[in-house]
């Protein structure tokens, strides 16, 4: 099977969905010139009416998308860096996420927000911030993030076809990651986690760059500690069944997320596990997260962000 990069897989998903449905269009800054490769060539293929460049005005560009969505279009909003979602946060959380409930289901909002995110590339706080935890918290929003090129194409297609608002960022450090991606049309549904590696001593839940780190640790500790690595793929809806089934086998859980320690989505997952799987736990649940501080732009960054070393230490701690 052919191998393409994660960012190429996203591009393929967008291209194919735009062919399949004329209502799909994209709005963002410099997406015609393609700062990032996923929008490369799109304006030539689909025209300026469907690939819309905007000024640096998040509320404006997002408002455009909301209005279009209410009129039956299917916009993809590209904020380029996930942190800029916050500039128009009221529109995102209240006016979009809660919209369907507040207006009695009259006008679905099939909006997709995407952007790059992630630490370790010295882009500093504003450009690296994780936003998926905040959107996870908002009613009405579905949130997903791919960890592999295969998942990227499938999840982005699912996002564009989804009639509810979806937030689906991608990690800078995985942008050029290569992987097998089928040429045919397929989706990766939301709410289905993927056991990326089977194991029996401890369950590690990790996504995106941290999935890659977790697999590295599992490989390193093979023969000593058997680690089962699960990629949630979507945070909301979250596949609790797969996680609990894994805990029936391993009885130990490490949750990894690049988001800040306070209030990241893994805190909710930990609480749910205690509610639903209390008797399965042979050790406390351990979270590996970013410390509660802005993301540094210099030499401190790789030292404090979640890494294979930190995941390994957490695994050893729960297996003691």
């Amino acid at each position: 099977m052919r191998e393409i990069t994660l960012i190429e897989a996203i591009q393929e998903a967008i291209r194919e969905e735009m062919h399949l449905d004329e209502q799909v269009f994209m709005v963002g800054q410099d997406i015609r010139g393609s700062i990032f490769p996923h929008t490369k060539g799109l304006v030539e293929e689909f025209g300026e009416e469907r690939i819309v460049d905007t000024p640096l005005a998040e509320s404006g560009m997002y408002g455009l998308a909301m209005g279009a969505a209410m009129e039956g279009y299917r916009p993809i909003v590209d904020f380029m860096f996930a942190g800029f979602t916050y500039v128009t946060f009221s529109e995102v959380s209240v006016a979009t996420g809660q919209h369907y409930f507040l207006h009695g289901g009259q006008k679905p909002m099939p909006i997709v927000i995407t952007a790059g995110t992630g630490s370790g590339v010295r882009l500093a706080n504003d450009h690296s911030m994780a936003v998926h935890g905040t959107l996870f918290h908002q009613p009405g929003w579905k949130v997903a993030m791919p960890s592999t090129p295969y998942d990227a194409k499938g999840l982005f297609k699912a996002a564009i076809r989804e009639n509810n608002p979806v937030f689906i960022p991608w990690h800078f450090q995985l942008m050029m990651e290569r992987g097998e991606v089928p040429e045919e049309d397929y989706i990766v549904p939301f709410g289905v986690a993927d056991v990326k590696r089977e194991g029996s001593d401890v369950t590690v839940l990790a996504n995106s760059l941290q999935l890659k780190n977790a697999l590295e640790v599992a490989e390193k500790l093979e023969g000593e500690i058997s680690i089962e690595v699960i990629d949630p793929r979507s945070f909301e809806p979250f596949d609790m069944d797969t996680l609990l089934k894994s805990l029936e086998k391993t009885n130990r859980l490490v949750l990894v997320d690049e988001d800040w320690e306070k209030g990241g989505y893994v805190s909710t997952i930990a609480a749910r596990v205690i509610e639903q799987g209390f008797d399965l736990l042979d050790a406390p649940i351990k979270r590996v997260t970013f410390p509660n501080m802005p993301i540094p732009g210099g030499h401190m960054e790789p030292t404090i962000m979640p890494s294979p070393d930190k995941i390994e230490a957490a695994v050893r701690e729960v297996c003691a």
Partner: protein
Amino acid sequence: MITDFLMPKLAMAMNEGTVNEWLAQEGDYVEKGAPIAVVETEKVSYDIETPYAGYLHIVVPEGETVPVEVPIAQFASDEDAYRSIAGEQASTASSPVAEVPSSTETDAAPQAPSASAGGRIKASPLARKMAADRGMELAAVSGTGPGGRIVKRDILAAEQQGVTTAAAGEPVMMPGTSLEPVRIPFKGMRATIARRMVESLNTSAQLSSFWEVELDQLLALRQQFLDREEWLGTRVSINAFLIKAIASAATQVPIANAMIEGDEIVVHRSVNVGIATALPGATEYDSILVVPVLKNVQAMGVLEIDKAMKSLIERARRNELGADEMSGSTITLSTTAGLSPPGTRATPVLNLPNTTLVGPSTPEQKPVVRDGEVVVRTMMPLSVTFDHRVMDGEPAARFGTALHEAIEHPGLMLG
């Protein structure tokens, strides 16, 4: 002074680059701003100028690809500095792996029970559930988890050792304070053993014969093995010799090694000896019986039998036997030697579908008559049960004699 020159990030989307060509030689002095290398990424080549002046030491050779921000060269400010880095040709540019805090080794040695000062026992949710399911008191379990926490493996270990399980809802029995009966569910292994015992007694025509066999020659022979214990790698047990003798007798009187299978009597030519082994039960009051099987004993020497037998029994104790090690016996050894009083005769129950069971017991020194003289010999009682449906008295007697001869004159087993 030495300055690292890192693979530059030349585009937003660049994660790694290839050094296509070095435009200066190793050891050259280069001026600041001079073209130094051609670097390629995503099929685009870039000419790189050096921001530093100095003597060039190449770290990443032509043709290699490295991630962005990895040192590809070093610049030394003077010749001495250059010599100090040029000499380290073998060192790579990879960053050292950070020391991972090693896990605290948890000993197998159990600590004191895990009650904290306030009397609260630390146990994981899973361990609590497992203990409750087994009717096990946490106070009786030692915890090996962090801080003395009782965890899953501790419950399993306690179960193995037959920690006292109180009846549901009743308090832990303290020695000498209560005469409450202990209730053990009559199911699982115990029920299976019970069923098979009754089946054996009800369906076969089994009876036992007893005699005594002189053990002295066997013990002397065994001593030759014991004297060379280190060299042989094992302390040969008497049972190994007895098993060899059983194989010898079964080979001479094959009908003793036969079994009823459907409407046929199958005379097995391989001698597979089942070794009756007692194991702890669910509590300190009951026990279970398993019969692991040593196969093709007729082809094995005594040493091999000894090692294989010990391995089988050890693994039986740890519940690690495979299915084919628990079945397929053609004849059984069930010994009470060392357990029963000296000279015990018994009527051991046949291990169906075997036809024969050999049951030695504890030897004792006795006066016997040899060559008209009264002498003291070590006499071991042998009880042999056989199934009269398959084997009549005459072949049974021949089997007994063959066994007797093999034990009393072990040299015959060399034949």
